[in-house]
């Protein structure tokens, strides 16, 4: 069979997506609300674990909404989604290890500044 005569007209039309406008407006509104909330975290000067968990919660929620709906990942086939999300495990590993590393660097610095290295 020849390659050229097999491109159906269907294909061109179906590529991409067209969703109801409502979903975009909803997500848009939610993003504003969530941004407002994360701003309020600073406004009310929450501190400690509460602040951190709230910041991270709103951050991941916003990022998830943008990726899922504005970037259409929610509607993409899993083959693509899977390929895009797996590499993030390497980033997660890097983050956790560097979090351990900065604490260790800080502790050693404090030790040598205040206790001294000449044992």
């Amino acid at each position, binding site marked *: 069979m020849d390659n050229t005569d097999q491109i159906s007209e269907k294909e061109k039309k179906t590529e991409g997506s067209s969703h109801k406008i409502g979903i975009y407006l909803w997500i848009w509104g939610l993003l504003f609300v969530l941004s407002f909330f994360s701003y309020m975290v600073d406004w009310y000067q929450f501190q400690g674990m509460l602040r951190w968990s709230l910041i991270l919660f709103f*951050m991941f929620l916003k990022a998830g909404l*943008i990726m899922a709906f504005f970037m259409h990942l929610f509607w993409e086939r899993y*083959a693509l989604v899977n390929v*895009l999300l797996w590499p993030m495990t390497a980033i997660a590993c890097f983050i956790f290890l560097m979090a351990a590393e900065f604490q260790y660097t800080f502790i050693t610095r404090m030790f040598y500044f205040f206790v001294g290295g000449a044992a």
Partner: protein
Amino acid sequence: MSSDPKIDGFELKPGFRGMASDTGSDQTMFKGVHWGKAMMWIFLVSDTFVFSCFLIAYMKGRGSTPVEWPNPSEVFALDAFGVPVPLLLIALMTFVLITSSGTMALAVKYGYEKNRKMCGWLILATAIGGLTFVGMQVYEWSKLIHEGVRPWGNPFGAAQFGSFFFMITGFHGTHVSIGVIFLFIYAYKVFAGHYENGGKRGWFTTMKGDYVEIEILGLYWHFVDLVWVFIFAFFYLW
């Protein structure tokens, strides 16, 4: 899944079964995904690693400095009617960027509906939003420089504060600026009808134009917004 394409001779299964059969099939792995769109996605993953490395470096740098880190809530405060409001400018910048992200999402939608006018105006609105963001960032930078914050030191605390601030927001701002340039170009292309009637040949390519290019542009723009979400959380709120 409403956006699944139709492919001759291939049954598109939903969910993880679909993932397995798509991956195991011949010709393409991402069924119905335009080459340019796949390229943009892979590029964005790579770019995610760039920004992640910046932010991880920032975490490591901030965590291990023995000098106290400046309080971003105070440094980035802005006087509104004589009262210092914490992070006011940053909140506005976030507002502007999310607004532009929303208009971009709608532009993609109208692009697929072949609504040339709506699509063009929304892209133009996005570009203006981006331009506003860059303008506000210029104001923020000049204000901080005026207050004595430099990449190599600042009056508030650890020297790395200025270093990471200018580098990370600068790199993000560069992404926004590049995006704005392309938004203006594509607004022109949409208005000029480059995607109508089978499409006009683009630059540097022998492929015909298609409204999928607006989605590709949209992916980039939403990514810029996405990065800002992380910068906002980690740099300004943390």
